[in-house]
């Protein structure tokens, strides 16, 4: 899938462009906001912000892990299926006889075990890819297919309906009026951005993606780093799965996280992280997800049907990636 990079186009663009590039995504978001302020009725309201932020949070949570994976030059197709596993496990735990007998412990386990399980499956992805030298797209395809099956087998394909306020804090709770999942989203974005800048692991992730051979020769434990990023990606997908089922007050293994892998990849691409690896724009990913979300909201709020919004979304993703490649 290697695509020859276009030869440097510095002749056409000023030298400051590479430094301005991270702000291009922000500029696009601001343009979209300005358009809405001018056109969309009742745009400036607490409710608009609320709706958009709660909807975008799960995509961003998954995309943070995806950004790290893509920064190593990989890809993770299994995130949607891992969300389904995590979303199926949580109600199984707190609705079990044990969970009902010990409500507090049950909820605590329902928050911890599914995320740990998803992270473990993520580790499996990393192990499989590094141990057998499999391409990431094939390696994670295994759990894309099998993962949802595992979730369906666990629940026998049944819809699990529940009402458990203390568990559902993760999707419905608020702290000072801010939804909990938005706080989780911001924490994850900040943590990933900090990690990439300040920690050895972050540096090594970028080194592996930039030039795997050079990284290996200079003593970076490439396989360990890759296992870490897929584990983190599984961890993020696990959290997102919990958020989705608690918002819905139900868990449907057939639907939780369906198509999420492509949404997350789109957010990462629009956010400016190159697929070749070596760079990671975590804040860019947040902005990319916000752009895609706001675009859909703008179109829906102005009476454009959802199906037409899909066409625009496809065009915008291509446009965003095209403009980034030109700038690079």
């Amino acid at each position: 899938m290697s695509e020859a990079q276009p030869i440097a186009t510095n002749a056409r663009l000023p030298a400051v462009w590479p430094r301005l590039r991270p702000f291009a995504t922000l500029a696009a978001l601001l343009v979209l906001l300005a358009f809405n302020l001018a056109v969309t009725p009742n745009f400036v309201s607490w409710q608009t912000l609320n709706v958009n932020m709660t909807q975008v949070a799960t995509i961003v949570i998954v995309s943070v892990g995806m950004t790290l994976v893509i920064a190593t030059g990989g890809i993770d197709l299994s995130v949607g299926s891992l969300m389904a596993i995590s979303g199926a496990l949580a109600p199984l735990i707190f609705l079990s006889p044990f969970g009902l007998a010990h409500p507090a412990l049950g909820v605590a386990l329902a928050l911890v075990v599914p995320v740990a399980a998803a992270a473990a499956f993520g580790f499996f992805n990393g192990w499989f890819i590094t141990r057998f030298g499999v391409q990431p797209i094939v390696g994670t395809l295994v759990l894309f297919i099998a993962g949802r099956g595992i979730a369906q087998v666990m629940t026998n394909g049944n819809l699990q309906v529940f009402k458990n306020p203390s568990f559902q804090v993760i999707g419905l709770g608020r702290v000072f009026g801010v939804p909990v999942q938005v706080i989780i989203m911001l924490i994850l974005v900040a943590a990933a951005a900090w990690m990439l800048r300040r920690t050895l692991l972050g540096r090594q992730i970028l080194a592996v993606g930039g030039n795997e051979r050079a990284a290996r020769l200079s003593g970076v434990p490439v396989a360990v780093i890759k296992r870490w990023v897929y584990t983190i990606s599984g961890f993020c997908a696990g959290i997102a799965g919990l958020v989705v089922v608690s918002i819905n007050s139900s868990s449907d293994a057939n639907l939780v996280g369906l198509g999420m892998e492509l949404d997350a990849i789109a957010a990462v691409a629009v956010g400016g992280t190159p697929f070749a690896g070596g760079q990671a724009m975590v804040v860019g990913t947040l902005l990319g997800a916000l752009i895609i979300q706001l675009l859909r909201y703008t179109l829906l709020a102005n009476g454009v049907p959802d199906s037409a919004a899909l066409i625009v979304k496809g065009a915008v993703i291509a446009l965003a990636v095209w403009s980034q490649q030109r700038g690079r």
Partner: protein
Amino acid sequence: MTMPARDRSTSRPQLLKVASQQRVMIALALLILFGALRYDNFLGSFNVFSVMRYNSMFALTSLGMCFVIMTGGIDLSVGTTAALASVVSALLSPYGLVPGLCGGLLAGVVVGTVNGLLVTRVGIQPFIATLSGMLMASGSGLLLARNQSVSVSYDTSFTELGQGDLSGLPVPAWIAIFAYLAGSILLNYTAFGRNVLAVGGNEEAARLMGLPVARTKFLAYLQSGVLASLAGVILAAQFGAGQPAEGVGWELFSIAAVVVGGTLLTGGIGSVVTTLAGVLLLGLIFNVLNFENGMGWISLSAYWQSVIRGVFLMIVVMAGSGKKWAVFRRSLAH
């Protein structure tokens, strides 16, 4: 998505190709033998026909995918292209078989052209280009169908494309057989086939040799779009409705079938016949599961089929080369 370029000596890929081709054919033969010996009606015409009818759609999308992957690309849009084509052909089915078929194929030509231009002219990575093609096709299908399935007209012969039989075989099976014959000839005996493998093997070298790299890639995406739309026409004719929301996950199933068939995702190596074997293997797993449930010894829900397919894909990938088996055995020994 750039994969680390592996050094490829001339002999090793050739050996690898032969080895994996044999493996998938042997696995398929064993599965069929197992089914034939264990279940009474496994080779009965009803079962064989329904397996053929249903899997012909995946056979077509996987064949298109196979060519794209051999150029070193990927096509995520095959599922939604099929959905769009099923809607278009259902809308045109009252006018007869030919308008329905041609309308559906035209949808595939459009999507394939968009994908091909995005990859070759605009220079976007195939994954993102076809992801946007996928969204655009899906949106167009839903828009045309107004978010509902569109009934196919039974007044014309259109439904024959999915439900009819011809000389003892289902029509979709004939279409798939013809497509695979054409694909096989195209790959093995024409300049286009050699260009596909050359471009996928080493794009820069192909360019330096003066091969038409952009045109080859464009044609690969175009044929993938056309084959996917053919699958969509069969879908509409077979189930009596154009289904705009169908096709979810077809792209990844097709990729899995191609990989099981021994085609490398890095491009440059591949085979049409083993892709068909890959499709049949993944399809027959479900079929065998149904029969096994019918025997009454076990009762595995249909959901197990995804788990089994995933595990199967894993085994195939691990078996990708003898060296890797050695690694696996060592990892078990520790």
